[in-house]
């Protein structure tokens, strides 16, 4: 889950600093900067030019690409590549599998991680620091040291070549990061609030569900988004566990699609775009939450 590491920085997040507030909006320097703006804009366009070239390639006929090369402006536009790639890449299946995994794994992972984080942050658990150390150490464990035993376990449970088989390993590898962020967030909740709820006779479960979770909504959303990105992008477990094309997730499906389309450039570009455009849209919509969550840690100083 390589995308997970950046989220670690959110661990030091302060409750009021996490979300919603855009750190860049704070100190506007409206005037000037024309030269710097132009230079940075050119660099930025160059930076994402691979994606722009994918778009022009995916939207032109193969003959046009072959005749004029990837750098030329298309003389003709078409959606045909997308139709072809969608079918051959079995994207209907891989999208369904990835989405199913996401809706099962992410809420479940956030819930059990929040419970553990609550125990660590607020319930004065015995061996607290030992448990924290053992769980956080999981951040550093590469997935590949576990793949052989995990494969054997899932095979004996009859869960290989089944997207549900991935839920357990994905949960386990998501827990360290989620607990790290959430426990540091929960700790910022004043003990006095929890204390007065206890005096009113609320149980620990009631305090957790009706007090701690609602107060931590911004952190829960950030953790859920980071976890969703990691889940959506995970490759190695999916590669080992899923074998038939109709059971694959997007990353593994994209790889086998790439093999079949090696000589069809426009179709390949269309397939890559089918795999990444929804992520890019989600990113553009959620970027404030992602950026806010990632940077909150660094601001603490």
């Amino acid at each position, binding site marked *: 889950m390589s995308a997970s590491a950046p989220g670690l920085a959110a661990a030091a997040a302060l409750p009021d600093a996490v979300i919603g507030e855009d750190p*860049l909006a704070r100190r506007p320097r409206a005037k000037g900067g024309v030269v710097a703006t132009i230079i940075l804009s050119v660099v930025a366009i160059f*930076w994402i030019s691979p994606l722009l070239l994918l778009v022009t390639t995916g939207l032109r006929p193969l003959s046009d690409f072959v005749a004029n090369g990837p750098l030329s402006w298309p003389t003709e536009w078409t959606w045909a590549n997308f139709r072809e790639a969608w079918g051959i890449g079995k994207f209907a299946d891989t999208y369904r599998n990835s989405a199913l995994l996401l809706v099962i794994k992410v809420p479940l992972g956030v819930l059990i991680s929040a419970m553990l984080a609550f125990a660590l942050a607020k319930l004065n658990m015995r061996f607290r620091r030992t448990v924290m150390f053992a769980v956080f150490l999981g951040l*550093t464990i*590469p997935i590949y040291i576990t793949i052989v035993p995990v494969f054997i376990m899932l095979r004996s449970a009859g869960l290989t070549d089944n997207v549900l088989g991935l839920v357990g390993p994905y949960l386990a590898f998501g827990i360290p990061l989620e607990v790290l962020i959430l426990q540091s967030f929960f700790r910022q909740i004043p003990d006095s609030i929890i204390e007065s709820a206890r005096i009113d006779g609320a149980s620990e479960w009631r305090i957790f569900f009706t007090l701690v979770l609602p107060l931590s909504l911004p952190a829960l959303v950030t953790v859920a988004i980071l976890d969703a990105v990691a889940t959506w992008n995970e490759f190695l477990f999916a590669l080992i566990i899923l074998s038939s094309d109709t059971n694959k997730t997007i990353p593994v499906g994209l790889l086998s699609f790439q093999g079949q389309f090696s000589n069809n450039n426009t179709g390949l570009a269309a397939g890559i775009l089918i795999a990444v455009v929804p992520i*890019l849209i989600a990113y553009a919509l959620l970027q404030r939450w992602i950026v806010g969550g990632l940077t909150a*840690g*660094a601001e603490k100083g």
Partner: protein
Amino acid sequence: MATATALAPATREGAGAGRQNKKRYGGLRPWLFALPALAVYVTFLVYPAGTSLFFSFTNWDGLSPTYDIVGLANYEAMTKDPVVVQALLNNLVWTVVTIVVPVVIGLTLAILLNGKVRGKTPLRLLFYTPCVLPLVSIASIWGWLYNPDYGVINETLRAVGLGSLAQPWLGQDSTALAAVMVPAIWLRVGFPMLLYLAALQGIPAEQYEAATVDGATRSQQLWFITMPSLRPAHYIVLALSLIDSFKVFDMIYAMTYGGPGTATQVMGTWMYANVFQYYQAGYGTAIAVVITVIAVAVSIPYVLSQTKEHS
């Protein structure tokens, strides 16, 4: 540990004496909350990792029902395996390059974006974009750009009259490792950029104003105000990048599968090849154990720092 933290739970029990120096634990209740996550974590991470450690002392092929315990033979064999040496070296090069280069580019972009620039939000959005893409799709995109015949990179070189430099970037020993690191750099610039930008925004403007009044030059301000303020950000960026770098697998597997020959093998892909291609599960898991031990060892200071109270 602050006394205040120990106080709160103790009052709940109504216990009076000795609560200042003796911390009262919450009994079984916290463990009920902790149980589901800990059970999953132990079942799917701790137990498999431990089992791999056991396999690394066997000669198991990954298929047969039986195997023998061979002690440290797999680890001895690694010292005579030239691919392991190359993979370790590649891991080292990968770690240094994919940390240092993105940090330098990210810091530069952050300083520029923190200056007088319009459209900061869209610019920041664009630079961070590669970070949210699946590694496999990044590998696909760059494999396509690198294509020797019709790839964008060679086409560009030909278009500007440098056609003699066009070459099979991923297909030859001399350039393959550098060619797989470029997309990794592309992917990883956004994260340090965001963190440094946030850190720069956190420096109070008064500090610069006071320095200007005292006659400090811009470079002095950069050196004496900006750089020291970035220290916490440096720590987070370096620790997290280090943790991430050791896990390298997806990008190499999807772009070169360790080739051509063994030019881009890293420990993760060489482990995979041994287990799933050469049916040497015992040897493969030993490779995984070695790189995991290194990764864990260098990360322990960071992990320890995260278990402390931030009070």
